[in-house]
């Protein structure tokens, strides 16, 4: 009997018109026929996994998925329908406010896409420029209207705080404008200084300082303002507008189910250059190189750069660690069901430690981080991780070699 198909699918679109100053995602400006070639390769990769995938969440991320042309989208969407991958309960596409058009929005909506995530980052023109974003403030409003008109009733925007030069006042008005826009969901995160990004170089060169206190204040401001406005935080950086009548203990109904799936340890396929996936104990990642990715698929292979088999305990540690990013923490029953391990006894020392610091709390049914604990989710995560058991193997196959990703 074939195993249960995988229910989650991520697709990476590795193109951006221009690289943002802070960005460490794999993306590059599209050159020549590269996008065309990528689309063809992606279709092959979709074909490859389609037997084993019946997604109820699909997420197109990037890069800038909205950079694909209408025709290219038609190819991709057509393939998804043909392969039985369309029609998930939640289907998200990331968009850049500068590349949203009415035609594209329509096309996506008609194909079954029902959630849009827009990378806005800021409502302040100067900061947008500072970050190297290609869109203007006005384009945000315009794109949002287009999306609504196309029938998208579930829209997220991404916002950034602690941007060099951003004052508390500027951040406050960004929050206010985001709320006024009326999206269903907000993702808000701190500027991160990733190696090899221009912003990091500027920081190293001493062009500005990071102000930890201001960053903390901004985050507190965010959490409070959003709560006042009827949003529910369900993860460190994620907020969903609450729906009347929903249970305050459950994960909000407008939460991004696809991402919740990651934190809850659901298997998921990852397609496209640099995409990661986790399927039946095997984590793998595609090459972060579009040309190589295309070449491999043209030769009839998936383009895995690496794969590792995680021991059940290591995987459980990973889930214990990252599941705590959610406000709901880990219901003990669910953790056991997902991982086969008992959180309460297996992580007793860590739980005690976190509670002693005032960072964690144990309820009848769950363990979760407190509000102050959520500020130290990485430290908590580091505690919960379990070292890879010696028996597990870390495979690093040569480029393009086949890995048994499908059950025979």
């Amino acid at each position, binding site marked *: 009997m074939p195993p249960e198909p995988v229910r989650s699918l991520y697709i990476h679109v590795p193109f951006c018109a221009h690289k943002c100053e802070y960005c460490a995602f794999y993306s590059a400006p599209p050159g020549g026929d590269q996008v065309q070639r990528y689309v063809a390769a992606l279709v092959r990769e979709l074909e490859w996994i389609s037997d084993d995938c019946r997604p109820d969440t699909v997420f197109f991320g990037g890069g800038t998925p909205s950079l694909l042309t209408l025709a290219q989208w038609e190819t991709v969407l057509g393939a998804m329908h043909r392969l039985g991958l369309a029609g998930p309960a939640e289907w998200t596409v990331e968009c850049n406010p500068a590349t949203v058009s009415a035609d594209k929005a329509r096309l996506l909506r008609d194909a079954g896409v029902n959630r849009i995530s827009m990378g806005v980052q800021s409502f302040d023109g100067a900061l947008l420029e500072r970050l190297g974003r290609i869109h203007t403030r006005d384009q945000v409003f315009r794109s949002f209207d287009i999306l609504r008109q196309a029938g998208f009733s579930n829209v997220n925007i991404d916002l950034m705080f602690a941007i060099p030069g951003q004052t508390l006042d500027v951040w406050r008005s960004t929050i206010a404008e985001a709320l006024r826009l009326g999206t269903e969901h907000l*993702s808000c995160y701190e500027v991160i200084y990733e190696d090899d990004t221009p912003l990091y170089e500027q920081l190293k060169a001493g062009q500005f300082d990071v102000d930890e*206190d201001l*960053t*903390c204040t901004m985050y507190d401001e965010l959490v409070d303002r959003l709560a006042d406005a009827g949003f529910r935080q369900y993860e460190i950086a994620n907020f969903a507008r609450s729906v009347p009548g929903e249970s305050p203990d459950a994960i909000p109904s407008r939460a991004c189910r696809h991402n919740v799936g990651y934190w809850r340890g659901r298997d998921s396929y990852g397609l496209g250059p640099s*995409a990661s996936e986790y399927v039946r104990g095997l984590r793998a990642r595609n090459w972060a190189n579009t040309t190589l990715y295309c070449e491999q698929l043209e030769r009839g292979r998936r383009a895995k750069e690496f794969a590792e088999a995680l021991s059940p305990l290591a995987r459980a540690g990973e889930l214990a*660690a*990252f599941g705590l990013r959610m406000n709901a923490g880990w219901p003990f029953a669910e953790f056991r069901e997902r991982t086969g391990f008992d959180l309460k006894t297996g992580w007793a020392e860590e739980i005690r430690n976190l509670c002693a610091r005032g960072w964690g709390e144990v309820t009848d049914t769950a363990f979760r981080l407190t509000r102050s604990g959520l500020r130290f989710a990485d430290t908590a995560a580091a505690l919960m991780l379990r070292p890879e058991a010696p028996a597990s193997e870390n495979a690093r196959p040569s480029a393009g070699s086949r890995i048994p990703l499908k059950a025979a």
Partner: protein
Amino acid sequence: MDAAHIRNFSIIAHIDHGKTTLSDRLLHRTGTVATRDMEEQLLDAMDLEKERGITIKAHPVTMIYRARNGEDYELNLIDTPGHVDFAYEVSRSLSACEGALLIIDAAQGVEAQTVANVHLAMKQNLHIIPVINKIDLPHANIPQAKQQLEDIIAIPAEEAVLASAKEGIGIEDILEAIVQRVPAPKPTGEKSLQALIFDSYFDTYKGVVILVRVFNGELRPGMMVKLPHSGKTVEIKEVGSFKPKPYTREKLEVGETGYITANIKSPREVKVGDTILDSRNPAAELPGFQEIHPMVFSGIYPINTADYEALKQSMAKLQLNDSALTFQTESSAALGFGLRCGFLGLLHMEIVQERLRREFDMDIIATYPSVVYRVRMTDGVEKEVDNPAFLPDVTYIDTIFEPVVKAFVICPSENIGDLMGLISEKRGVINQTETIDSRRVMLTCRIPMNEILIDFHDRIKSITRGYGSMDYEPDGYEGSEMVKLDMLVNGEVMDAFSSLVHRSKAENRGRTLAAKLKDVIPKQQFQVAIQAAIGGKIIARETVSAMRKDVTAKCYGGDISRKRKLLEKQKEGKKRMKSMGSVDIPQEAFIEVLKTS
């Protein structure tokens, strides 16, 4: 060779006055080495020695010189280290000689090291032949050099030989002076063999090679001789000399220098200063010389704790050829396992550290150097303390005595004010001020050794823009108000930073260290107090404020494994940190501060 035709001598000089160049000339002129074999600076064998222009080991070389009187003489040149750190080694080289060439640079004149070296040679009753070198230089000032010779060294100016080692001028005159003025060695009149061991080194094939000066009797292969120190009797395998490469000889006779081997595998069995005696009919031992006493101690730790064994082995190898170096295991809460090492002085310490890095590829960190204190306890017992961490409880201490040195500082007259300031800042007392020439003065002062450890020499150089020079010799102990300065992190003492400091300086140093530590200790999830304390009393405090948060970042599917690896790496890194007062301190932080304090 009969003793009447043997001359044993050393060359002493301030650095760069031309000792090595002159040695090379002498080897060349006596045909000891052919021109084509001449390599610049033949005697400085080790790379590091060449680079720093200093000689660490004694190198004896035997030359045959046909003098103007037509007779052949065996001249044994015993090269000496050129820095007072090695005064001990200088004096043991000198003890194998009857005379010394004192080189003075005609353009520079007498320098601090010239004075210190002459003191050593005079203590050994050597006949000193002054050589005014570099007379070829356009700014050579021979009359002035002669004047300084009379005034500072108290040697009649007419005894000076004028030379240019570089141009080959005066070389004959020097050789003749050696033959005529250096006394020939005389047998001691004892009943049998007496040979002084003045150095040794380890050879992988021959075992320990012992450098000797025969004072009585003779040494031949096959002889059974006794090493009084180990009490062992050994059979001599090989006898020889150097020119400068070793060559075997039939025997070494009274007054001669050279080497012997006897299949000795452990350098520990051979003690420099010991007398080799006939095993069946032993004569009295020669006076020998004082035990080596390291003057400066410091902990040396591997940066990577896993390298401890390798460090120990490297150190043992270094010790094979550096009998002055001592070490024993110590451990520090902050730095893990390491070695407490004793050095003759700061330069010696630097050289050893550098050799560990270069020749053995070791990544090391050295703790703050310490001199050897004498501690008189209330019950009258005296203890030596070379590691501040082991200072006894102050309530049982009556007095702490610190070593002092007699320092010679020569400087341009216009810098005298600044130098007097520096010396008094270093708790020194100036005993004498002499005019050397129209431009320079010499200050003779008494300074606690602990004060010249770190930056005294560098500061003299910078005040005098390089024209000043300094040298010193140990000058006993003095009672002193030393206090132990401890650095604490959240209440726990960080032993690597403990030091003995004079009371007048403790507060300042405590403050500086606390401020430095504050800069390098990363924020923790709680506030960290850094304190400097003297005997439990806090004299300085800095606070590292608590970290308020982790970074609020995206973390979705693809990021999970990346993030996990990052966190695991941090966790791994934490294991390598030293947890002190429950504060995780990266080792780099210690290193940063130790490097700069």
